[in-house]
């Protein structure tokens, strides 16, 4: 460990050379900055990991069932009134062009990023599901590589599960749903904040890295263009948002989409990873219902708990939220990336009344959660060992079976009082060791 800390500066230097950066929007301006690495890893014991793994697999299986149910004919969870239909159809994630279509092998969320925190007693709580384009897997992947190079002994002495299999897992995911042709990772381009990740993942999964202009639809088949001719594409792991995928079906002003790719997709001639329309599954309002989905579709009790959450939409919950707003965290369901998150305790009396009035007027727009006193992890800041709040993103990959990558992204806040560890809000990352 000491050796890793000694090498931290060197590793951060390497990371900046590789271009491991994160782009953030702040006050309307786009800034790219380095995503600082801290050498002290988060360590998860083998038995803790086994429980976590079971819970994550169960959750992702249920979420996939939900997506298939809603976009299919049955919509059983709505008809049986387990989920109020407005929580599905009022989210911006609901996409009409995805109605009535089941993607290859019935998988919607191939790569899910599940964000969790651990309370002081060590219990895991799910904070958020990311079923659209969860990013960040490249950070622990590259950090581990560099650590291994700086200090090979560390991994000989500690029984850490090798995480170099992410590329293989990704390839398995793409191969499993492939509709005939090559695997492609679609990046918006080299100016995208996550371009480094796109290129690394393409290399590790033996996929072709493509920009939108490299792809073209002809005869209801998707092709990758080269000077030698066109190559058929069977799977696109697309790293661009749903709304930008196809200007003929979604946003007409999108310049980073592939016109008519949705026609090819609906004809079953190409797999899109993840499926468009998944936004109804990772909406902050829908989050409340995930434990209910697990019971509804699997007939099982949820292994992993949600953070205690209230839905002002329900009268009882609304009363509780309005009375206890000073100790709750209130989230606007339409916002993402740590935006629209308000801690009741941080508000002035006037602001608190204002928020309460907004909740009364538009209760569906909000969820409220108990503030979990989650674990701090040690890290080195300016040469001193300090403790900061940290969360964890687990990557769950669905191919023939559903697997959890034995690694993940641990993010921490550099601000000593902040509970928000989203990388859009500043902060850094650590490697995550799963012990064998």
């Amino acid at each position, binding site marked *: 460990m000491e050796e890793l800390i000694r090498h931290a500066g060197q590793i951060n230097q390497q990371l900046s050379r590789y271009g491991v950066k994160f782009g953030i929007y702040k006050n309307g301006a786009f800034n790219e900055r380095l995503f600082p690495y801290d050498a002290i890893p988060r360590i998860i014991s083998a038995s803790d990991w086994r429980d976590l793994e079971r819970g994550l697999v169960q959750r992702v299986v249920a979420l996939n069932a939900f997506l298939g149910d809603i976009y299919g004919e049955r919509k059983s969870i709505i008809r049986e009134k387990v989920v109020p239909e407005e929580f599905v159809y009022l989210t911006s994630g609901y996409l009409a062009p995805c109605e009535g279509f089941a993607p290859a092998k019935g998988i919607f969320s191939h790569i899910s990023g599940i964000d969790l925190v651990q309370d002081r007693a060590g219990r895991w709580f799910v904070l958020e599901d990311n079923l659209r384009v969860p990013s960040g897997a490249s950070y622990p992947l590259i950090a581990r590589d560099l650590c291994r190079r700086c200090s090979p002994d560390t991994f000989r002495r500690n029984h850490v599960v090798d995480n170099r299999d992410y590329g293989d897992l990704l390839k398995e995911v793409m191969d499993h749903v492939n509709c005939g042709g090559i695997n492609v990772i679609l990046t918006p381009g080299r100016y995208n904040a996550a371009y480094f990740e796109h290129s690394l993942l393409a290399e590790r999964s033996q996929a072709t890295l493509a920009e939108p202009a490299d792809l073209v639809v002809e005869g209801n088949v998707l092709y990758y263009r080269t000077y030698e001719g066109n190559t058929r594409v069977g799977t696109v792991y697309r790293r661009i948002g749903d709304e930008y995928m196809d200007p003929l079906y979604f946003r*007409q002003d999108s310049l980073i989409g592939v016109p008519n790719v949705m*026609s090819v997709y609906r004809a079953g001639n190409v797999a899109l990873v993840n499926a468009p329309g998944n936004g109804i599954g990772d909406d902050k309002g829908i989050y409340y219902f995930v434990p209910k989905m697990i019971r509804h579709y699997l007939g099982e009790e949820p292994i992993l708990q949600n953070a205690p959450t209230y839905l002002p939409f329900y009268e009882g919950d609304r009363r509780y939220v309005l009375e206890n707003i000073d100790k709750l965290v209130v989230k606007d369901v339409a916002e993402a990336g740590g935006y629209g998150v308000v801690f009741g305790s941080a508000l002035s009396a006037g602001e608190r009344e204002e928020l309460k009035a907004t909740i009364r007027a538009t209760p569906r727009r909000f969820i409220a959660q108990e503030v979990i006193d989650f674990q701090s992890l040690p890290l080195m800041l300016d040469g001193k060992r300090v403790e900061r709040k940290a969360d964890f993103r687990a990557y769950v990959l669905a191919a023939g079976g559903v697997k959890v990558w034995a690694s993940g992204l641990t993010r921490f806040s550099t601000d000593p009082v902040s509970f928000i560890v989203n990388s859009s809000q500043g902060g850094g990352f650590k490697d995550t060791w799963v012990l064998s």
Partner: protein
Amino acid sequence: MKWLFFHYDTFLEFERSVTEHQFVLRCMPRTNDRQRVVQAEVKVSPAVPFTAQEDGFGNAVQAGCVFFEHNSFHYSAHGEVFVSPDNKDRCALNPAFAYPSRLTAPTPEMAAFLKALPLEGGRHAVAQAISSAVHAHIAYSPGSTDVHTTAAQVFAGRAGVCQDYAHVFVALARLAGIPARYANGLVLGEGASHAWAEAYIDDGWVGFDPTRDSAVGDDYIRFSVGRDFDDCPIERGVFFGDGGQRQTVQIKVRELSQIDPAPER
């Protein structure tokens, strides 16, 4: 019951030639409870291959691409349809039609307008009253709006064309708790494509035409439906090229012969 022949033609002329022109068309009626398509065909020129499939709401979609340089694009649909006077398309309700979409989001003013209407009786009566109120509220005024105009803008501006009447109807009906959707197609005796609306009543969709304040009878051929125009435009295309374009539409709908409804047995 009417036996209708239709011919729908659109000519797009480009100021400067364009390439890699990807298109999606929805100009082919499909068989349902109120219309039976006996024969229909879509043609495009330049003649390129295209595929026929279904979109999320069950509309017929033709998708294709003209890769080479061209100065004009012509697509047409023609065929014969039997249309029933029974103004109802029975099918299960997709709950998506109960909620606002981008072009049909309501405003407080629209809610107040709805509240002030004397709405009595069942869903059919309420939908009929909304249709008449929309017809009275908006002045028919070609050129006052475009395909991006929202129901809220039309409601405030009080002028528009059939698409706008349909959007305002859909927004108000949903506000009143009646699932509603946008419909478009052709009408016997009209020289342009037409848009109207449908409301879900009991076990199926019933047509309302707020532009003409009339019932949707056996003279309406339906091409497509959606939450709003954006879900089901007749044509959408993207291409490489930087000039302007001009569109000409020609429509013929003709009655082939008078047919009596099937005698009761």
